[in-house]
């Protein structure tokens, strides 16, 4: 069936079966490749995208159920100042190695900073508990997210 998806502020008409996930439609039909297919079971978080402002599993979202929702992938979020700070911090803190989890990590971190610009170590851990990383041991990721938040706060304070 035909479904209209609003992705990064732009409308796309796609033909999707009821079993097609948002992740498969993004990657295979619309060429948005940032969200990754890891476990396809909702465990690993590599497919995380933002839906109506909340991080969601691309692999557990049916495309036909996402009509009219505000879907943001890393491709779209990268244009924002907040994501630029996050990406710089991930580079500066060595918050990735193979990079497979990174887009999902960034989307989850971005959703956290949208609500909480002064997150504790625990806040970051909870917000990103659904994103598995097999390279870093997580500490650089938590540090990077808190550093990005700090730099955003400082920039806001400078006005």
């Amino acid at each position, binding site marked *: *069936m035909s479904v209209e998806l609003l992705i990064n502020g732009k409308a796309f008409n796609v033909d999707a*079966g*009821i*079993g*097609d*996930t948002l992740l498969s439609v993004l990657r295979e039909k619309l060429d948005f490749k940032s969200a990754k297919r890891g476990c*396809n*079971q*909702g*465990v690993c*978080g590599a497919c*995380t995208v933002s839906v109506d402002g*909340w*991080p*969601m*599993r691309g*692999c*557990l*979202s*049916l495309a*036909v*159920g996402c009509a009219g929702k505000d879907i943001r992938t890393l491709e779209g979020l990268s244009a924002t100042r907040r994501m630029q700070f996050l990406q710089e911090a991930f580079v500066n803190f060595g918050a990735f190695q193979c990079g497979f989890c990174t887009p999902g990590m960034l989307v*989850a971190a971005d959703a956290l900073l949208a609500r909480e610009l002064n997150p504790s170590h625990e806040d970051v851990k*909870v*917000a*990103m*508990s*659904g*994103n598995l990383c097999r390279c870093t041991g997580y500490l650089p990721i938590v540090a990077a997210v808190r550093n990005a938040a700090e730099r955003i706060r400082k920039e806001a304070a400078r006005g």
Partner: protein
Amino acid sequence: MTIEPGLFLQPKSADEALHMLFANEDAKLISGGATLVAMMNAGVSEPTTLISLAAIPEMNGISSETDGTIRIGATTRHRETAGSPLLKGGLFVVRSAASQIANATVRNMGTIGGSISFADPGLDYPPALVAADASVEIASIRGRRRISAREFFTDWYTVALEPGEMVVSVYLPGHWLTGHGFYIKHARVSGDYATVSVALCRQEDGAVSVAVGGCGPKPIANSAANAELTASLDDAAIKRASDILRDQSDPLDDVRGTASYRRSLITGLLRRAVRQAEKSVGSES
């Protein structure tokens, strides 16, 4: 996996959904998708018709009834339940269970109705709902009925839903709005299903209600165990209560632990729940 052509129905009311369910007996209900879509991805479930409950206002949200009962709509997401200030006192047990389901992203998706209808024995809600004396409102085109959470969970992955029925809401009794509630979960890693879990509610006057999850086809609760803990919270009483619960348990050997390991966890988890309840006496939970 693509299942073509497939029907994706989006009713606007519970009654409309029930008529669709009646007319499509092979249809599956979907709301958050956290479980069903994972099963579809794994090829375990291949529905040709889905009825989405996501756009039915009457099935969503948490509210307080005039008699103090708290109603949680079936499509209420775990995130909302985990943060609801209405779930206080003993009912904090439900909030605590919700906050320990999977991880933050999945809690943005999964719903209480989907969770309890799936009824995996390692789920967090079932023991919390049994301990809190919850009831489940079930609807079909023939009408609505309400049964206790204890009767709702019947066997491994099996609940008291008949064909054509769905969960509309969960009701939590107002008599638990005072006191304290705790959900203690033991899992291999954060976010996993429980290996074993214990839910405990305690009134200001000392009345205790406990339920054990992950130790059999459905949550274990026993009035004699509750009586032991209502009479005393010392180690001997905890031992007697956990012996009663363990005798009633029927756990499996699986990847999360052997049956004997699971049985051996009951006492320690119950003690942790009781000690937390003791600490909270006289303070707000």
